[in-house]
Structure formats: C-alpha cells, structure tokens
C-alpha cells in the first residue's frame, strides 16, 4: 500500500515534469531554426521567411488559376480538335510572360540566397576556436587556447562567450557526422579525412541544443549536444574551471571509486585528467559531475541515470560502444560517488 502510493506520487511528479518541459520547450524551441540566437541563424531565418512568403504567393496563385480554369463557364466544343487560334495565341503570350516571371523570380531568389550565404560564411577572425571531433555516437570537444595550458578536452557540452565569433573546426574520428545547432547556425558535416569549419556569434545567453544530422549508424538518434552561450566573464570562469585537472577524492568511498575506475578498466577508454585514466576512445570525464546530460544528450545527468548508465549502457543506448561491465552494487555505488565528485 505504502509502496504503491509512493509510486503514484512518482508517476504524478514525473508526469507533471514532462508536461512542464513540454510547455517550456514549445516556447523556447531549443533546437528550432526559428529560435535564432546568433547573427548567422538570424540571417538564415530572414531569407527562410522570404522564401516561404514567395512560395506561398506562387502556390496560391497557381491554385487560383487552376480553380478559375476549372469552374469558368465556357462555350461548347463540337470536336476536340476545334481549337481557337485566338486562344492559342493569347495563352502562348501569357505563358511566355509567366515563364519570364518564373525565371526572374528564381534568379532573384538565387541572389538573395547568395547574399545570405556570404553573411553566414563571413570569416571573422575568431576569438574562440573549438575543435569538435565526431565519434560514434558522441562529440569530443577540444578548446584550443593561446597557450598550451589553456587547451583542454571535454565532451558533448560546449560553452561559448556571447558576442564573440566562435570558430568550430570539424573532424571525424570514424564515419561522417554533422554538427548542427539550429539556434546558432546551419549544419556542417564532419567528413572523414577532411577538416571543415563553421562559425557563429551568439547574441543571447542560453542553452542551445544540437544534434548529429548525418546518419552515422545505429545510435545516430542519440548523438546530441548542447552549446551554452555565457556572458564573457562567466565564460572565462567556465573555461578556467574546465581547464583544471580533476580534484582527488578525499573520502574513503570516493578513493575506492577512483581505484575501481582504474581496476575495472574504465580508464582504458576514458580520460580523467590528473589521474592515470587516459583512454581516448570514450568521452573525457574530467568534469562529468558538472555536466547537464550524459550519453551525448540522451539523459539528464543525475545519480539515478548515471548509475543506470554505468550498470547497463546497452539498455539505454543499444549498440553504443561502451560495454556492459559486471559490477557489484557496492562497486557501482563507489564509482558513481567518485564520478559525481568530478565537478
């Protein structure tokens, strides 16, 4: 009885939470082309609206002509080949004019498009350069500062300063992916064996969601990330914090977690800076405790989700490259405790 009422409260609460997020996200549209928050995405949105307007006018015009053509009253035709020369001549002229109008319209739209293209690809000397490498199915993020001690690696969550041009260099570690944050700018592919770049200047602080837009295998659907635009001073604080190595755990459970992390082979794939864990195959976990999500934007990071993920990653994201580790529950608790300390 007690248990079931607890469950009910749980369902009620999660239901309310879902409803609340639905309402909130439909307002913010945190992955929408129409929620333009950068110079580049605003420019695209502007011409998108122009194209939609022109298209609507053309569609309505064609449908009106069709409708009028169908319902108008007309003279009887005795024989299908009784064609009025006058009509053929008049219709021919009208079609010629319509053809010319079509040509002018599409050429004008091409020019409008080219103008926007120049804005979107304008090459500002970026003050911030981030290298993003696509992996099946997560994002490696490397900040390249002016000096080596300002360079660091993180995963799946970028932060950028508001008002400064940010250059993102795009590479792939395996197959082709595509980097896309609709609120900031259009997408650009991460092509194997090639380096691409994309640039944006965020106008307003906020968290903008992005997602891989090129089919990249079994978990393409769960390859999301976020870009957090921060005021410049907050951005610098974030950067300096990320740049630090992981603090050593001080409590016994945390120390045991760190040992287990190495003993169970987690460090073969994951790096935690400042420790012996230096694997390159999975996301850098140095500051996992301060991230908003886990598994490339699949789940919010909280103790329950993180524990569920470590216990059986294949259940949450089937086919992903993290194997299921057979951990005893006390081991799991220790590792979880350790990771959550990595703020």
């Amino acid at each position: 009885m007690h248990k079931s009422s607890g469950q009910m409260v749980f369902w009620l609460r999660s239901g309310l939470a879902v409803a609340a997020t639905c309402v909130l996200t439909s307002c913010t549209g945190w992955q929408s082309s129409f929620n333009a928050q950068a110079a580049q995405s605003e420019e695209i949105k502007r011409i998108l609206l122009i194209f939609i307007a022109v298209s609507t006018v053309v569609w309505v015009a064609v449908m009106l002509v069709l409708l009028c053509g169908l319902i108008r009253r007309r003279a009887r035709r005795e024989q299908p080949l009784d064609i009025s020369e006058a009509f053929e001549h008049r219709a021919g002229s009208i079609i010629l004019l319509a053809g010319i109008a079509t040509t002018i319209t599409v050429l004008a739209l091409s020019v409008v498009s080219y103008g926007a293209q120049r804005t979107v690809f304008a090459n500002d000397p970026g003050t911030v350069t981030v290298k993003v490498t696509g992996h099946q199915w997560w994002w490696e993020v490397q900040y390249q500062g002016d000096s080596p001690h300002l360079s660091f690696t993180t995963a799946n969550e970028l932060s950028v300063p508001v008002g400064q041009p940010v250059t993102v260099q795009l590479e792939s570690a395996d197959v082709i992916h595509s980097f896309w944050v609709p609120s900031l700018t259009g997408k650009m592919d991460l092509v194997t064996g090639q380096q691409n770049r994309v640039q944006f200047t965020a106008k307003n602080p906020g968290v903008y969601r992005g997602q891989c837009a090129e089919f990249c295998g079994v978990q393409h659907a769960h390859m999301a990330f976020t870009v957090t635009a921060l005021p410049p001073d907050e951005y610098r604080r974030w950067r300096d914090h990320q740049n630090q190595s992981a603090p050593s755990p001080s409590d016994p459970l945390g120390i045991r977690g760190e040992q287990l992390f190495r003993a169970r082979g987690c460090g073969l794939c994951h790096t935690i800076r400042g420790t012996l864990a230096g694997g390159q195959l999975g996301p850098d976990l140095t500051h996992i405790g301060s991230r908003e999500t886990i598994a490339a934007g699949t789940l919010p990071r909280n103790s329950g989700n993180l524990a569920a993920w470590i216990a059986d990653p294949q259940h949450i994201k089937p086919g992903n490259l993290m194997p299921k580790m057979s951990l005893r529950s006390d081991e799991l608790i220790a590792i979880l405790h350790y990771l959550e300390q990595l703020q």
Partner: protein
Amino acid sequence: MSDIARNPERDLRDTGLEQAQLTALLLRLWRTPDGWLGSLTSVDHKVIGKRYILTAFAFLVLGGLLAVLMRLQLAGAERKMLSPDLYNQVFTMHGSTMMFLFAVPVMEAFAVYFVPLMVGTRNIAFPRLNAFSYWIFLFGGCFLWIAFMFNVGPDVGWFAYVPLSSLQYNPSKRADVWAQMITFTEVAALAVAVEIVVTVFKQRAVGMTLDRIPIFVWAMLVTSFLVLFAMPSIMVASTTLILDRLVNTHFYDTASGGNVLLWQHLFWFFGHPEVYIIFIPGTGMVSMIIATFAGRPVFGYTMIVLSLIATGFLSFGLWVHHMFVTGLPQLGASMFTASSMLIAVPSGLQIFCWLATLWDGRPVYRTPLLFVLGFFAIFVLGGLSGVMVASVPIDMQVHDTYFVVAHFHYVLIGGAVFPLVGAIYYWFPKITGRMLSERIGRWNFWLAFVSFNVAFFPMHILGLMGMPRRVYTYTPEMGWDNLNLLSSAGAVVFAASFAVLIVNVILSLRRGELAGDNPWGASTLEWATSSPPPPYNFARIPMVTHRDPLWVDSGTLPVVAGLSVERREVLLSSIADAEPHTREASPEPSIWPLLTAIATTVFFVGSIFTPWAVVWGTPPIAIALSGWFWPTGSKEDEG
C-alpha cells in the same frame, strides 16, 4: 521453329487477306506459348509489362508497409517497437525498395507496356532483352527482400555513404546486399532504356514524325536517356564499394589516399537525375490524362517536349545541392543553387501549359483527372520547397531534416505516384478490358489526397523545429510528439488508400464494366486496338497523319500493308520523319533469357561472398548467352 526456316520460298503477306483470316494467322504467330513453361518463354511486351507493373506494385506494398512501421515507431517519443538496428534496416529497405524496386521499374514497366502500342508497333525492340530485364529485376528484388528476412537487410541508408558502408564500420554482408541489389536493378533498367530508345527511334508507325509522338512517349524517351547517362555513375559507385569491401581496394579509404566525398559525387550524379527518371514519366502521364479529360490536345506540345528535354539536361547539373554541407567551396556551391532553381523554369512552363489546357478544355471529372488535380496541389508545393532547399543557407538548416523528407515525398508522391495512380485508372481498361469502379475511385482519391497531406505536411514543421532524418526515436523533451502522431495517423490512412486501390482492382477485374476499345474517347494509338490488345497489337500497322490520330474526323485509321504473316515482323521507320524503311524480324519466345538471368543471378549473389564467383560464375552465363544467340537459320539474325 518459324515457317520461313522450313519453307524459305513462301512469303505470305497481310496485303490481300480477309480480316478474320489475318487475325487468326497473326494470333497463331504472335501468341505466347501455352502452359506455365510457355509463359516463362514469353517475349510479348504486354505480358512482360504486366508482370513488371505487378511486381513493382508488390514492392510498393512491401515498401509501404515498412513506412507504416516507421511511422508507428515515431508516433511518440522513445517508443520501443523497433530496435535501432531494425529501424535502420527498415528505413534503408524503404528507401531502396521505393527508389530501385518500385519507382523506376514501374515507370519503365508502363513504358514497356504502352510505348509499343502508342507508337503503333507489334513488339518492343529487343524483346528477349526485355524478358531478361524483367527476370533480373525480379531476382534482384527478391534477393534484397530475402536478405532482409534473414536479418541481413542493408542498414546504411539508400545512399550508403562511405565510410559507414565500408567493411570497417559494416562488417556484415548488409552493405554488400545493398550494393549488389543496385547491380541487379541497374542492369534491368539499362536494358529497358535501350529498348525504349530503339523502339521510339526505329519502330514508330509510318507518318509519326517527331512532332506527332505522344508526350508520354517523349517523356519515356527522355527518361531512357537519363537512365543511360545516370546509371553508369551508380554502377561505378556500387562496384567500387564492393571492390573495397571484397578485395580490399582503397577507393574510399582515407587512410590510403581514398576519398569519401568521391562516393557522394558519384552517388548524386546518379541520384539527382534519378529523381527526374521518376518524375518525367509522371509528367508524361499528366499530359496524356489532361488532354483526354479536357477534351482537347494538350496546349503547347512543342513547349512541353522542349521542357522535358531541358529538364533532362539540367538534371545532370544539380547533384551538388545534395552536398551543400560537406564543406565545398562557397562560390561553386552557389552556382548549383542557381542551376537547381532554374530547373523550376521548364517544370513551371509545363504546369502553365497544363493550366491553359484545362482552362480552354471541358474537364470531365473522372478519377484519372482527380488524381492529376491532386498532383497539381501537391507537386507545386513540393517544387516550391525544392526551390527553398536549393538555397545554400536554407539548406544548411533543413538538410537531413524532416523538412527534406516532406519535400521529396511531395515531389515524388505528388509528382509521380499521383499521376501513376491516375494512369492506372486511365489505362486499366486498356490492359484488362474492364473499367475500374468510379465510385471506389473517388473514395480512393479523396482518402489518398487528404491523408497524404496530413501525413507529410507536418514534417515540414518538424524539420524546421530541428528533427533530423533517419532517427529511430527522439527524446520527449523535444516537443515533437504531437506533430509526429498526426503524421503517423495520416500515414496509416494513406496506406489504407492503397488498399482501396487494390480492392478496386480485384473487384473490377471480375465485374467491372466492359471497356471497349476507347472508353475515354482518347486520341492516341493505344486506344485504336481492342482492350486488352491482341498479342500482335494491331491487325494492320496504323498510319499516322496527325498528332491526335483518333481525333481526326476521317472515319477509319489509314493502315500500312505488306508485313509477313508467317514470321514475326515489325516495320522499321526513319528517325525523324517515320518513313517506312524495312521489315525486321522480331524474335520468337525463348527460355534462354530466363536461364541467362538465373546464371547472372548466381554470379551476382555469389560474388558478394567470394571474388572467385566472378571466375566460376562466368561460364554458365556464356553458355546461356550462346543458347540465346544460337543461329536459327532464318534470313537474318533474330537478336
């Protein structure tokens, strides 16, 4: 086998024969042999055309069921009906089936059936190649679907981008199945393209000058040239992919100097014309249906034909718009923006001509015309969203999202499937001798038209809201649930509209109203013969003096005499003016095309498992081809 072989002196012609005697002789000469074995030897373009159409529709049903599965999976966030692995196979199978096993073959199938009738000849050019083409298509399609049943269905998308489809990232046989299915369907498509080109150029009825060719035939001629020039590109692509996977070549291996964008260039150099290979026949059908149901010749014949040809040429200059976000030089990309938008001009001109035809005509609202009117509403919208995706900046937002999914379903279903279903209602009486039910037809149309828009219009919005393509699910906080649910509901009803079509076909086959030769009062030659047409198509080859021969008020159609009634003969005419040139033997039924197709199938399927299949698979094909081309002792080779 043929009388002429036994008795070379005899040379009986159709010139002085009574009608009854003539048809009896022609029937004995041209009919397909009895029995199931006999039916396997058929080289009659109508028999093969019907098989082609039915098989393509079977694949449409299968591909459509996969679409319904996907829509059920996407109806809500984080649904677990399909596993990600299965979902990826399902969307790959859906795309590959619809493009390679339905859309292209069904259009070619209609051409196989109707082009010889429309140009007034007795059989298609290279009838045995035609039979071979059908068997290869059937075996290739079955190969793909059997592989899917055994969980070896391709899962790399219908575009199979490397390196995802390379051995390193796809170590099972799945990508090989995809690549080899391409080989099957391309061989089949190329064969039909050659037949259509030769039939149109050399076998037109006397007097059918270039400016009297029915527009559907023009459309299929342009389409066939597109096939001839586009398909080699995908054959190179799929062959190099198989070589990379099978014998470790490095075409697409970046570590060894290969290039992954090469694949995309080759694929889209085929893939964009492919869209027009599907769409141009659709426009041909629209022109035919509009002329008949508006009760006047289609306005601007010359403009429409030139538009078709211009579309064909331009379609080869657009492929890069599929690659705008791969990091190409910006100026080059913007050139492809302009060329992609310019193709709207010839398409627009065709639409203006059809509007003028309807304006001046007296529209009769039968089901075929309803589907054409639906085509206008849907296709124009799809064309306009095509202008949007041609813009580089807009494409950066909508590329690989549901906006593009919406766009190309509006173009392909609107531009090809609606005209196709209209064409089924239009030509069913010719093929079967019975009319489809008009009452069920109206239900079919309205159900299809409304549910199509409910299913696909919301996808535009979903794409702009950030939903990428090819995702097996999405998280609940994205707020995409409602529109996806709406879309799924529409998709289920849209699928049901095809069930209505199938029911209509089955009911009408049994008790549909008898059609007669020309139930719609149409103007082109296929309506000059009985419904269904006899194996020899026309008792006497018609002579054409006008673009709309059956509308010329002169009583009966003039005919040409002098063809043999003792051996299969077709009349060859000159390319431009269709002046009679010579009588040419047309092949007898033969089992060898089927045997060659079986040998080829063994070769193709074997070679995805071992390169040695290329060695031991060749002799059986050589033997089968020898049987096929064995001299029969007639005056000329039978081809």
